[in-house]
């Protein structure tokens, strides 16, 4: 068998272009698989570990104010293993060297010891001294984004009063792995952060001395959280509790869960393409090797090698390729995984996030690669086994080209002889032609997707920042204010236009389903903040009742005419009812909407608003900011220009990396398939092409026969590729749509053109490289040998 093994290697070397293509394409599939499965596992494990070590809360509850001693009653609820009562709130920050006010979530630290629930991991510095009211920890993302140093001072407006805070440490918490400002779509790590400070100082600032307004719980394993939530709600009912909730309503954990889901989709979906195509490539190459080896197979059998030995011999080549692809893909997947982990680390703040795929992942990848090789080589190996020794030794008859269908005949009668050769070969080898077409189509599809994401993002940003939110700043107040506050804001420097706004955080109940959402008050004829659909048309608030975004209506199983129960989660925790007036399709946000005055009346605060939208004179931007930094009543200020900038930065980095990966994979796919098709076409047609040269056809004319076949297959791939890309794109957009956006599918003509151009470019490059074989055709040699 030694000699035969050497022959396996020599066969692979002879088909090295095909082997290379197969290893690359299959390697890509393995790489994506290792990356996605490994990344998912790493995130999942890191999350689990982080949550366990740092005691991530199982339940949380917000309330208006409860006396500190209630904590004992909460701890006594059966199934609760730990409680931490806290003071939390929002604050406006005046960051050194930054014009615009930023904001932060404030969370208290217990006076003695570390938090029993939602503990912190200290990245730098030390814990605040409980006797020093001004010492704080800030979250690492905010600190990094703003370049904070230990000892630096921040000015913060808490509950209308300005405080100077000193950073003594930088920390992460399982509660804030992913940080977004309430109601914001994208993280703005430099503009919204978390500040932890001593319980007493924070309570004093919020007039909550001896009391708390937030509690987090750890539960004993295997307990019924529904019962516990009910017990907590009962205990806290007198204190304005907004109801205990699970992790699925904790924003950070919810984002993480969604990300894990998307990785799972990616792991299932993208590698499949590559693996299936690789299987076909294996099949085509092996079929070719075996066809070229008929007489060798006959010889082996005549010498007495068993069918099994012959099958093993040819399967070995395929298995070697699988092993090569698994090795290459594992290394590439590991590298990509590390790259991805470092991108994740910027958004998901774990104390330490490392890409680590288990041995099982690599073993699984190898298993899939081997399965792909076996599936691909099956028919070819069976053909080798079936070959009778005598038949194998006789020279093969010329490849038979039977009569074609009438349609094909009449079509080919319009062609010149060279084009007829191309057409007949495509039809004669349908599986191979189809593999090439499908492979190139998939490459086009992946590229169409890569071109669609930026277009969707661009559209989303355009709608959000140009069509919908035309204000420069949105200010939100600590408490609801009289409408007359509009005049006060109008008098701030640089203000050109002010419109009132109102938003209430609520839980909507219908048909046994409950969803926490924002109920947004819309101003009829608003000029600044408007609700816009995918066609860029303004959605007007209903005259009466509530408008639900379609995604929300589906979650609630609600249609027009249905009565919703509406439960306020902040303030007085009012419970009220309203009817669904209509279903709407806003492009950004999937909330509930009402006419602004109707909303204020519904919340029993007629004439009160919770914020304003402002248009500014750009020349007075700095003066305006200086003025609002001092404003006591502000809970937050959101700047459209900054939001747009950070969204664009996030997007460029995240999508930039992804698009680079897509582009590389798509070119491997298109190039690999085209190369392998071109190489086999050349190998099979070498004799015919040389004959054409002998007969006096020029290199150009002969190249046409070779390149024309690929060109035809490439062109055939355009339409299915574009259709597949569009369908997959629409499907992915639906999949990625969440509570915050409904992603539209954006037809991006330039993106399609680039996709088609790039894929066909890869085909052309492959064709041109293989075409050089035409220059090396051996005219004399071809006349000596039979086929």
């Amino acid at each position, binding site marked *: 068998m030694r000699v035969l093994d050497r022959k396996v290697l020599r066969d692979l070397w002879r088909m090295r272009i095909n082997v290379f293509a197969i290893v690359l394409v299959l390697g890509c599939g393995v790489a994506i698989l290792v990356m996605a499965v490994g990344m998912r596992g790493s995130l999942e494990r890191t999350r689990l570990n982080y949550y366990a070590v740092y005691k991530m809360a199982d339940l949380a509850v917000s309330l208006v104010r409860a006396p500190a001693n209630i904590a004992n009653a909460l701890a006594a609820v059966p199934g609760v293993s730990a409680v931490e009562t806290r003071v939390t709130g929002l604050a406006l920050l005046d960051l050194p060297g930054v014009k615009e006010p930023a904001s932060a979530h404030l969370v208290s630290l217990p006076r003695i010891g570390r938090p029993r629930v939602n503990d912190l991991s200290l990245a730098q510095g030390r814990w605040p001294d409980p006797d020093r009211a001004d010492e704080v920890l800030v979250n690492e993302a905010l600190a990094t984004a703003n370049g904070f140093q230990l000892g630096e001072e921040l000015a913060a407006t808490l509950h209308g009063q300005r405080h100077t805070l000193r950073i003594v440490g930088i920390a992460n918490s399982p509660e804030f792995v992913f940080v977004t400002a309430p109601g914001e779509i994208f993280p703005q790590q430099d503009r919204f952060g978390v500040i932890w400070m001593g319980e007493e100082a924070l309570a004093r600032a919020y007039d909550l001395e001896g009391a708390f307004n937030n509690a987090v719980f750890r539960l004993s394993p295997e307990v019924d959280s529904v019962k516990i939530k009910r017990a907590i709600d009962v205990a806290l009912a007198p204190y304005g509790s907004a109801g205990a909730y699970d992790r699925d309503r904790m924003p950070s954990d919810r984002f993480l869960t969604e990300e894990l889901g998307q990785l799972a989709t990616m792991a299932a979906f993208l590698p499949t393409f590559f693996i299936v195509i690789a299987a076909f490539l294996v099949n085509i190459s092996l079929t070719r090797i075996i066809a070229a080896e008929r007489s060798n197979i006959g010889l082996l059998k005549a010498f007495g090698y068993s069918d099994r030995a012959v099958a093993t011999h040819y399967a070995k080549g395929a298995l070697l390729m699988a092993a090569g692809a698994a090795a290459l893909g594992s290394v590439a997947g590991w590298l990509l995984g590390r790259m991805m982990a470092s991108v994740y680390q910027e958004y998901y703040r774990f104390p330490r996030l490392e890409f680590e795929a288990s041995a099982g992942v690599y073993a699984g990848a190898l298993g899939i690669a081997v399965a792909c090789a076996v599936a691909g080589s099956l028919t070819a190996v069976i053909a080798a086994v079936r070959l009778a020794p005598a038949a194998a030794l006789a020279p093969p008859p*010329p490849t038979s080209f039977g009569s074609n269908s009438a349609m094909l005949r009449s079509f080919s009668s319009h062609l010149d002889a060279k084009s007829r050769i191309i057409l007949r*070969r495509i039809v004669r080898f349908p599986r191979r032609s189809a593999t090439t077409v499908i492979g190139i189509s998939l490459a086009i599809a992946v590229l169409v997707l890569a071109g669609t994401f930026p277009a969707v993002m661009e559209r989303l940003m355009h709608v959000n920042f140009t069509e919908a939110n035309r204000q420069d700043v949105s200010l939100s107040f600590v408490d609801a204010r009289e409408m007359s506050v509009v005049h006060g804001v109008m008098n701030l420097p640089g203000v050109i236009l002010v419109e009132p706004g109102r938003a209430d955080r609520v839980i909507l109940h219908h048909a046994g389903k409950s969803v926490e959402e924002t109920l947004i008050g819309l101003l009829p004829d608003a000029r600044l903040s408007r609700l816009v659909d995918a066609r860029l048309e303004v959605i007007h608030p209903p005259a009466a009742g509530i408008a639900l975004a379609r995604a929300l209506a589906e979650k609630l199983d609600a249609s027009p005419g249905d009565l919703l129960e509406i439960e306020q989660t902040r303030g007085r925790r009012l419970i009220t009812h309203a009817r669904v007036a209509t279903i709407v399709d806003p492009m950004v946000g999937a909330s509930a909407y009402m006419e602004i005055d109707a909303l204020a009346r519904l919340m029993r605060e007629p004439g009160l608003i919770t914020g304003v939208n402002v248009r500014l004179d750009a020349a007075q931007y700095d003066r305006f900011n200086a003025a609002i930094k001092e404003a006591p009543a502000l809970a937050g200020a959101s700047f459209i220009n900054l939001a747009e900038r950070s969204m664009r930065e996030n997007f460029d980095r995240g999508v930039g990396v992804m698009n680079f990966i897509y582009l590389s994979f798509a070119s491997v796919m298109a190039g690999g398939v085209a190369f392998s098709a071109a190489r086999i076409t050349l190998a099979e047609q070498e004799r015919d092409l040389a*004959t054409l040269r002998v007969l006096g056809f020029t290199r150009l004319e002969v190249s046409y026969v070779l390149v024309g076949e690929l060109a035809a297959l490439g062109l055939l791939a355009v339409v299915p590729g574009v259709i597949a890309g569009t369908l997959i794109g629409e499907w992915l957009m639906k999949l990625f749509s969440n509570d915050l956006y409904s992603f539209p599918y954006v037809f991006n003509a330039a993106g399609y053109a680039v996709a088609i151009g790039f894929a066909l470019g890869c085909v052309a490059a492959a064709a041109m490289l293989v075409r050089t074989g035409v220059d090396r055709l051996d005219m004399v040699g071809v006349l000596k040998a039979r086929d």
Partner: protein
Amino acid sequence: MQVTEHSGNPTGDLTYALRKVCKRYGDGTAAVHALRDVDLEVKPAEMLVLLGPSGSGKSTLLNIMGGLDRATSGEVWFGNQNLSSMNDDALTQYRRKRVGFIFQFYNLIPSLTARENVELVNEIADDPLPAAEALELVGLGGRLDHFPAQLSGGEQQRVAVARAIAKRPAIMMCDEPTGALDVRTGVRVLEALVEVNQRFGSTLLLVTHNADVARLGDRVVRFLDGGIRSIESNSRRAAPSDLEW
């Protein structure tokens, strides 16, 4: 087409004039001298048979004269053009316009029918015979739309003959055209060749290792070890049907 003029046309009325043509494969001790100092003249419309044992250099010479290969040294004149000094493109044009080839293994394009194999070459010829007519001439009028896989060896070779004659070539080069055929089919192929030679006045170069086939030629060039051993004229050309082998 690149044309190399020569002051005193070396060929005169001749079709080919070969001067000291050598062909060497490889270098040094491993060198094989496939042709040594071959001098040969070929007259217009002549039927010249190159006869010799296997390995004596016949195919090598034919390939050089057909513009498929180049001599290592020496001159190969076709009319007033020196094939030895032509570039690749000029040689391609020479084959395309002047030469019709027929090979031992037919070299048909398997994806084209008999008719289309002929049309393939007609598409690049100046004044070709219609494909059906050419196939009629070799007795294949009834098998126009068959693919090579559907034809016997003799039929395939006759398609090759039709393909070669359809462009009315000045020269026909046939390398062992009957080498893979039995007698009866071989005779039919040879008949077709002789017919063309007489009808169109093409110069016909026929390579064979079969002394009997050599009786067809006006002259017979005997090869041995890469050199011409003798050239004989046949007083009377035999008819293909007289041959026995």
